């Protein structure tokens, strides 16, 4: 009967990891116990069979797919290692701030002390001077005041005082009780930096109202809210064509949820064959879904259903953010590149359909859509070679005339 220790000895030997000092014990065991020898032989055979399994090479295109994924990462600036900076103690910034505060406070206190002393001196001077009955020109002999004070002068002086305190002259001076307005320094012109002396606004021009359109940017989970639905319907009525970015955690899963929601508004979604293949391989490249068969309210209903289905998904929501913007030049170029023709996305289809249903028939309006690989551009299918694209272009002629050209881009969140 083999013990656990015996079995461990045997498996270690099969692994080729037996310590030399234990090899003798193995030989003794194998010689003593036929069961041990049988087990050893069987385990060696099992190991040999595993090693002989055929090698499975990686599928073609794996390296390309990884390279594509890696190339889409945002480039980080190379970080050059720096010598560790000497770190100042944590209290240094506070000490610097406190020192500055002290200096500013002390300077303010000193300035105010000087001004107070000057005022006191001036007042003392005024008290000593007699008041003449008929005061002559009070300011005769004083230095002429500048009519236009230059901006580089200091603060407006509060008192006009003589520079020289000569007693004889002082005796003739009147008591300067106040500075007369006509002799006071002219106010500094506006724009010299003195906020207090700024020219008051006498007339404020009326504000012009500007209407800014902000693209719809909302969590997909909120697309069922009435205010967002109304906003989407309103926006879709204001421009010709739109791009809807749907940011998702898993592109293939999101595509399936989108397709399921699209069916609820009668949209028939075809998938280009090359794109199908990429979806089966669960490659995360962004997808483009194009349709111009849905009216604005149908688009809003599609998005509401999308939000509901996404929230109800057992695996958890896969959609994150929705972003709706009118076409720019880039989107028109993208469509021409994807389809090989100008779809006329700059103008909505006018007039009725050329394929009016025959009298008595109740033909359902055709609402086609197609899923293509959106990026990188190198992976886009050649539209001339895709029978799905050709079929879509053929069926497109039968779409309703109220449709909004809509390019839905399902993008992975990186």
């Amino acid at each position: 009967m083999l013990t656990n220790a015996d079995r461990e000895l045997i498996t270690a030997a099969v692994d080729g990891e037996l310590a030399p000092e234990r090899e003798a014990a193995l030989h003794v065991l194998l010689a003593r116990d036929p069961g041990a020898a049988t087990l050893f032989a069987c385990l060696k055979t099992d190991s040999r069979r595993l090693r002989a399994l055929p090698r499975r090479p990686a599928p073609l295109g794996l390296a390309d797919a990884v390279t594509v994924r890696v190339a889409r990462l945002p480039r980080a600036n190379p970080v050059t290692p720096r010598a560790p900076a000497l770190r100042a103690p944590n209290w240094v910034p506070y000490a610097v701030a406190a020192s500055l505060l002290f200096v500013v406070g002390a300077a303010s206190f000193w300035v105010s002390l000087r001004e107070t002393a000057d005022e006191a001196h001036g007042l003392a001077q005024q008290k000593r001077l007699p008041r003449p009955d008929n005061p002559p020109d009070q300011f005769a002999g004083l230095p002429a005041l500048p009519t236009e004070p230059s901006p580089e002068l200091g603060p407006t002086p509060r008192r006009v005082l003589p520079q020289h305190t000569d007693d004889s002259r002082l005796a003739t001076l009147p008591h300067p009780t106040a500075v007369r307005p006509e002799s006071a320094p002219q106010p500094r012109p506006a724009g010299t930096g003195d906020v207090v002396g700024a020219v008051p606004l006498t007339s404020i021009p009326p504000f012009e109202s500007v209407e800014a359109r902000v693209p719809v940017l909302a969590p997909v989970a909120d697309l069922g809210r009435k205010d967002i639905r109304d906003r989407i319907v309103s926006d879709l009525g204001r421009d010709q064509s739109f791009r809807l970015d749907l940011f998702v955690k898993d592109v293939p899963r999101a595509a399936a949820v989108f397709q399921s929601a699209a069916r609820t508004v009668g949209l028939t979604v075809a998938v280009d064959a090359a794109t199908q293949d990429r979806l089966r391989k669960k490659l995360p490249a962004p997808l483009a879904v194009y349709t111009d068969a849905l009216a604005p309210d149908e688009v809003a209903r599609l998005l509401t259903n999308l939000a509901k289905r996404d929230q109800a998904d057992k695996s958890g929501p896969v959609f994150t953010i929705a972003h709706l913007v009118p076409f720019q030049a880039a989107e028109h170029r993208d469509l021409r590149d994807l389809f090989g023709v100008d779809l006329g996305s700059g103008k909505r289809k006018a007039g009725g359909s050329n394929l009016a249903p025959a009298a008595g028939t109740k033909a359902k309006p055709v609402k086609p859509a197609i899923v293509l690989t959106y990026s990188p551009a190198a992976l886009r299918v050649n539209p001339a070679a895709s029978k799905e694209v050709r079929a879509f272009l053929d069926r497109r002629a039968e779409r309703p005339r109220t449709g909004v050209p809509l390019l839905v881009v399902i993008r992975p969140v990186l």
Partner: protein
Amino acid sequence: MNGRPAAFGDLVLRYQDRLFNSVVRVVDNPDDALDVVQDAFFSAFQSLASFKGDAEFFTWLYRIAFNTAVSLRRRRRATVSLETGRDGEVVIDPQDPSAETRPGTALERTEEEEALQTALNRLSGEHRTVLVLKDIEGMKYEEIAEVIGVPIGTIRSRIHRARLELRELLEPDDE
């Protein structure tokens, strides 16, 4: 490498076959193995700065791959595949979880390989992983411990139990 995708592509080409071969034996689904290997290379690229060179690059890459495989097993969920119907419109079918009925996963296998892989699949994930690393990859205990991130003693006992369990599973076919 300075983050150049093209240079990393050469690295992928060098290691992809070996890594895929091991991963496909662990997850037994070429689609899942492809996901795991792609995700592993992608994660490795993002983590290149953290590779200190204190282990073989392949050992480090393996560690990432097997952690990814474990994560995949844990979050195993129903997935939906897009297939087109007769008229080119998309039909959604829930994916059949059994390996035998999944289109595209049928491998051309000999009976021997079929028996071995079936037995491997019946092992627990831990046992399957250590046996694949030991016998298919030819790693030593220390390397396997490095990849899986457990002590050598744990590796030794896991392989021991895995071999005995595999033996029990293969015994009826051998008789």
